[in-house]
């Protein structure tokens, strides 16, 4: 009986430890902001990306939240 309780407590501890680590991992991912996109595979794609990123569409808006 005591051994069973010990095993349950051990498993619970390990699960808690796992949760904490997962949470830390998530936070790290959220805060990491790469300065450049390194997935560019060719010069043409890069030039395309440069032109597209710099162009501002009329429909683009600034988010100042919602009042309703």
């Amino acid at each position, binding site marked *: 009986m005591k051994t069973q309780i010990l095993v349950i407590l051990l498993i619970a501890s390990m699960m808690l430890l796992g949760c*904490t680590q997962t949470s830390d991992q998530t936070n790290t991912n959220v805060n990491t902001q790469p300065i450049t996109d390194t997935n560019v595979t060719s010069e043409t794609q890069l030039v395309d990306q440069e*032109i597209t990123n*710099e162009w501002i569409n009329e429909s683009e808006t600034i988010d100042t939240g919602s009042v309703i």
Partner: protein
Amino acid sequence: MANKIIATMIGLMMLMLLPMALAQDTNTDSGTSVIVDTTITPIDEKEARTMLSPFGAEVRMLQLEKSVTRNVLIGNEVLQVLSKNHTDANLTDAENTLNSLEMVLEDIKAAPTEGDKNVLVQTFIELKKEAKTLSNDFKQETKNIINAQDRQEIMTNIKDLDKNDLMDINNKIREILKNFNAEKMKEKFNQMGIKNEDMIGRIRNGDMNFKEIRDYALNQFRDLNETEKKQIAATMRNNTIKNMVQQREMTQKIIKDLRQNMLDKMQNRAENLSNWMERKALDANARGDFNITQRLENQNERLNQMIQRMEDRNGGRRQ
């Protein structure tokens, strides 16, 4: 022996749970005590980066003006519907918040768009964050009063907002964007070795859409040899990284004092609210807008009563 092991395990578990409990407390605390949004997101950074380019500050300030104008107009509609449908509801806080948001809007309209880029970016970020904080405050202050029927009524009343009330600002944005995009494409064309003033002129006049420009630029690029392509791509990438670094340095400087600056600003705004409302009421009166005059006078009276109550609670001393 077994009892000791169990006690040790329970102790260990409690030790493990303690940091989680403390972390939860911190979050709760920040949720109530932190009243301003002082985070700089990748979107904020992208918006700030635009301000480093010619016409960029004008574009961003006009976009911000549009967004805040929209919230002020909707906020006014919310207050009108709620004061009609819920005559007993206390809307004083929401009214004060909306007036503060209108003060922010006036600051946005008066904000500089030329001069020191550091100042331009700082002004933009602070005004944006303040507007966002106040919009969110207003939402929180009305959420327990507003019901589905009110919401439906408000939505019906604001459905033509973009077509009517925001038409002028939309036109201004459209015009300034033509200049901004023309300058940007000129810069990119120069980096690519393309000389086509006629096309830049057509972008400036709004005679070309983005797809046409992009197709033209990429076709020109494809005609180059591999060495030229590599060289141009490297130049473009280096320039972009340089701009990003410059903008990051700016935002890092701003973020240091952002929280304190915003708290000071919001406190000043609260202190000046009564004078601002008096001035608005006089303006509305001069225009013959007596409904607005009456509404502002009533709000000002409630605000002064609230200030008086706070002073009484503080033993007659103004804090």
